[in-house]
């Protein structure tokens, strides 16, 4: 087990290194000049732009920039954001908790919801309830994520005015509220993005959960147990559930990229200044260090997700280690 763990972790590191290099090159070899966005106007001479390029090392060969960057990253320094004019580390320190909050809540809810639906479906595979729920799930699974976010915003915020249109919390009053008011205000701002993200991912969870449950319930040992008079409820609760939940969680983590992509659109539409939003904004500003670090971060998340999924599977099923 330890050997597998070490190998798998090394491999994950390799993957991160590969993606990092790739993203660094994709960003830095792109045509165009990152200096300029903040330095336009006829009063800016070429000499000034050149000065700034030199300041950020952009006038050096890409290979040299790469080596410098890797060295910095190895020391935990992600560089300096051109567009925000502060260290990328600070930008991330603000954005990561926000993304974790939004995604974490959406994840919890979508697992709760998705698993409940999955169990309802698996009770009678291919029964009418299963089929109808399946269709609804498939429909939700087919909704364009950005479109759903737009529609939710349009309906619940712009039309019905039930919830604020976006942002973390009230732009002004938040800091002056009492803690319970603050909590309420934050929750109000969380509702729509969390709702959207939950709808999007609970469809995925439910589809997996139903499948896993059906497969466990149709296994020989379970059939035997049921034949021996174990009630369906008890079977699900005591055996099937546990056996089906693990693979569902695993599959979900293995595909965390799906979730990450969905959250990019949701963050964008609801002005939620998390990682997805920060990175997409940085792309528009050609903020090379921030874009590169953003892609690095996303990749690390995805790789970690896959790693966790594999380790969980390995812990659960010793045969996998032999693979």
């Amino acid at each position: 087990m330890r050997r597998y763990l070490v190998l798998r972790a090394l491999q994950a590191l390799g993957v991160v290194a590969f993606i990092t290099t790739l993203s660094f090159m994709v960003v830095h070899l792109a045509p165009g000049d990152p200096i300029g966005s903040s330095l336009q106007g006829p009063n800016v001479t070429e000499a000034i732009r050149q000065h700034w390029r030199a300041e950020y090392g952009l006038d050096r060969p890409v290979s040299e920039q790469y080596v410098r960057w890797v060295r910095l990253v190895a020391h935990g320094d992600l560089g300096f954001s051109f567009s925000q004019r502060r260290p990328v580390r600070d930008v991330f320190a603000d954005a990561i908790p926000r993304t974790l909050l939004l995604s974490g809540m959406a994840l919890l809810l979508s697992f709760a919801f998705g698993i409940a639906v999955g169990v309802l479906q698996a009770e009678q595979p291919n029964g009418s309830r299963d089929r109808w729920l399946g269709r609804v799930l498939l429909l939700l699974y087919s909704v364009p994520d950005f479109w759903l976010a737009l529609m939710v915003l349009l309906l619940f915020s712009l039309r019905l005015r039930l919830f604020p249109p976006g942002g973390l919390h009230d732009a002004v009053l938040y800091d002056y509220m009492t803690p319970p008011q603050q909590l309420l205000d934050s929750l109000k701002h969380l509702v729509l993005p969390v709702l959207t993200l939950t709808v999007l991912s609970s469809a995925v969870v439910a589809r997996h959960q139903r499948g896993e449950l059906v497969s466990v319930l149709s296994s020989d040992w379970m059939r035997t147990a049921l034949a021996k008079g174990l009630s369906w409820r008890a079977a699900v609760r005591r055996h099937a559930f546990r056996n089906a939940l693990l693979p569902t969680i695993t599959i979900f983590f293995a595909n965390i990229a799906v979730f990450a992509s969905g959250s990019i659109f949701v963050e964008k539409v609801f002005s939620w200044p998390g990682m997805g939003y920060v990175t997409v904004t940085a792309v528009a500003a050609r903020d090379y260090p921030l874009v590169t670090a953003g892609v690095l971060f996303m990749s690390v998340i995805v790789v970690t997700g896959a790693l966790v999924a594999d380790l969980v599977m390995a812990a659960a099923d010793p045969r996998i280690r032999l693979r």
Partner: protein
Amino acid sequence: MPAIGVRHRLLRDRRVWIGLGVLAFMAVAALTAPLIAPYKPDAQLDIVQLAGQAPSSAHWLGTDPFGRDVLSRMLFGSRVSLTIALAAVAMAMTFGTLVGVIAGYFGGPVDSVLMRLVDAAFSIPPLLYIIVVAALWGDVGIVALTLLIASVAWFGVSRLVRAKALTVRDADFVMAARALGMSSWRIVTRHVLPNVVGPAIVTSTLAIGNVILLEAGLSYLGIGVRPPQASWGSIIQDGAERMSDQWWLTLFPGLAILVTAFACNALGDALRDALDPRQLQPLRDDDTPLITA
């Protein structure tokens, strides 16, 4: 696998008919767009009087801010959206199957190298990757976008195909063929490919739905088609600024995307169930969304 059983199951499955029906409708609409579209899709009919008009008898789905007929744009847009999806998936399937078969059949170091590559590719967040490339590398047209999408869509297939090829490789009939001195090329084409084609088709059908969603999202971000051309996502983008008062620009193309993706996914599910009846649940890998949209 008994082909008759599969056909029978498919014919009985309502999802197949719904999926095929919708896709056939979309395909006919796309193919006959020049005949049935009431207006030219990029004609700015009247930029003052007809800009952003709500649905009416003359313009069933309204007009966009440039005074163009939304129905006509959606009909022509379906050509772009569907072509990108089909082309990207076709490319991804071909390449993915190739890699999967090679890795699975030959195994050993070839397999290790290829699969590590696939692992790495899996870890790239596809949406972010395409946004970064498209935004920084500038003028990304339809062809480039298709290639970009294909480049993030192939590895799911190859992983799946490899797994299948691996089992086929050790099957008795392949052993026998090898013992009889059949060349690797013939074994692959005669025995391995036919056996991996089923899962590959299931995956591609599901992938088309996902790619349609991805393309729409990217067009919505302004990546892909260039004006005056339209795709479903770009129509939404043209209307995004006016979403609150010109809802038809967001609603109708969104529904078209939703219905098409739904049809592909329904068909994909049905195919999967039919091809692998023992497994009522999705195969682990082929239900993995290939693309995150």
